């Protein structure tokens, strides 16, 4: 709470970005690609962490929003000749608007029922991506998606593009860090913890519910806008329902509601399978076992586990140690 204390999340974000800027040295193209994919995924997970982890609204459409962002960016940059930065902004705005619309059911239905509504939306988006060939290219997808030119520097190669992803991810993470610490973040948290009490304290439940959905979805749109030039070819498959479940799993496994949780969760979801490649066909089974074991040992995710360990070391009651608690 005190302004003088250094914020651990902020320091970690900046230090992490600095390390990741140089990390790909000697990793080769593929290693660099995996690192970039980790960060892009983390951006989508960050958004879902706001909607679900902080505001408590269950959504199963994050990958669909990422798809909307990726396709919007791909179409705008390949067919309409729009620059990447404009496409990025439009993708975010489009997902913000779609998220706002999807937020309306959330004003009426809660918990599992809300998840079902978002699940239907997710399926709808996937069907449009697959069947509306005139627009999306159907199962053939869209290829030759250009990478952005930043201040006159081309990012066609893996390393410059990775550094570009690091910079964008850092900016997006800082904005969210600031948002969660603001009075809005406190209101989002109140929405999760006790909406009835929050309403009796004048918290505008409708506005904050819609905003939590819209901002979370916009982050998926931003992630999509980074994803399209990263892979340079997109088809509907990475944006289907199972991918939304996977993003949800990353929120929970990293530590739902913790500001750094999305990075840990995306690390588990994107990088761990790569590390397990040496096990050949067994890697999915091992990956699943690790995640199940983790969630049994600590339902609060990896960061919940770290917090518990830290508390035990310091031997004092758990007071204001977590990122979110510090944040609000």
């Amino acid at each position, binding site marked *: 709470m005190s302004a003088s204390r250094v914020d651990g999340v902020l320091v970690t974000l900046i230090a992490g970005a600095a390390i990741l800027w140089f990390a790909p040295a000697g990793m080769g193209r593929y290693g660099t690609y995996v690192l970039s994919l980790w960060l892009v995924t983390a951006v989508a997970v960050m958004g879902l962490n706001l909607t679900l982890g902080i505001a408590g609204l269950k959504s199963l459409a994050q990958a669909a929003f990422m798809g909307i962002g990726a396709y919007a960016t791909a179409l705008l940059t390949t067919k309409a000749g729009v620059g990447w930065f404009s496409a990025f902004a439009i993708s975010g705005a489009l997902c913000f608007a779609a998220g706002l619309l999807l937020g309306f059911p959330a004003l009426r239905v809660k918990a599992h029922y809300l998840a079902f509504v978002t699940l239907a939306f997710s399926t709808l988006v996937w069907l449009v991506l697959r069947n509306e060939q005139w627009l999306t290219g159907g199962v053939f997808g869209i290829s030759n998606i250009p990478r952005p030119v930043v201040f006159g520097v081309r990012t066609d190669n893996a390393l410059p593009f990775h550094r570009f992803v690091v910079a964008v991810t850092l900016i997006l993470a800082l904005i969210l860090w600031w948002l969660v610490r603001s009075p809005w973040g*406190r209101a989002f948290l109140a929405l999760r913890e006790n909406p009835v009490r929050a309403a009796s304290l004048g918290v505008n439940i409708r506005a904050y519910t819609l905003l939590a959905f819209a901002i979370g979805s916009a982050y998926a749109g931003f992630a999509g806008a980074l994803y399209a030039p990263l892979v340079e070819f997109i088809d509907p498959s990475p944006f289907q329902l199972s991918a939304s479940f996977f993003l949800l799993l990353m929120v929970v496994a990293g530590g739902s509601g913790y500001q750094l949780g999305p990075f840990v969760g995306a690390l588990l979801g994107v990088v761990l399978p790569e590390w397990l490649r040496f096990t050949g066909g067994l890697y999915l089974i091992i990956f699943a076992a690790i995640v199940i074991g983790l969630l049994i040992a600590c339902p609060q995710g990896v960061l919940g586990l770290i917090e518990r360990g830290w508390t035990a070391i310091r031997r004092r009651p758990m007071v204001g140690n977590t990122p979110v608690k510090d944040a609000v």
Partner: protein
Amino acid sequence: MATVLEVEGVRKHFGGIAAVDGVSFTVEEGEILGIIGPNGCGKSTLFNCILGQLLPTAGRVKLDGADVTGLNPEDMNRRGVSRTFQLLQVFPELSVRENLILAGQEHQGTMLGRLFGPRDAGLTAAADRMIGFFKLQHLADARAGGLSYGQQKLLDAAMAFMAGPRLVLLDEPAGGVNLTMLGDLKERLKAMNAEAGATFVVIEHNMDFVMSLCTRVLVMAEGKVLAVGTPAEIRANPAVIDAYLGH
């Protein structure tokens, strides 16, 4: 004295059951009105109808003469009516100070203004004053969920006062609070009434608490008003003794 709240013939039916069956009363500025009655007589339902958690089946609720029937809880709160709930309702993951800042922040400026304004919405000083007033200084940075039941009750009440409300509806503030804490709570509520000029309606089962705190007492039974009067009149009312207080 001006009339703050007018409740006119409020009814609330759940299926065939009339939980609140035509209740009328007024609350004058600066008074502390107690509402007593056996469990299930409709006291909390009445609060929910007044504050917009429930839509009354019939009847009117007026605040400062304006019809506010059916307004939602957020709007009622922004019009200066706050409440506590029968079951404890604090935000367990937030600190005591953060709970109080939350309780006041939505009354500060516009939504967009709050987003770009200070992190505490400029309320740290006000929250700390409230913490001091309710004698929770040593717990200001503690997680609200880790407080004792009685301390959480104090915090719950403090939150209802954070936005400087005109009218506060307290649903069983003394329920489950130990005797020492009870004295504190009563003294704090009286001080709030005297110093801040806040008007209260208090639902309570603890007779000593009600009779010593309230200026007037309303007795409910089976969804209806049985009697209204000063504590002394209520104690002496044969119908009340028969229905509720016992011989």
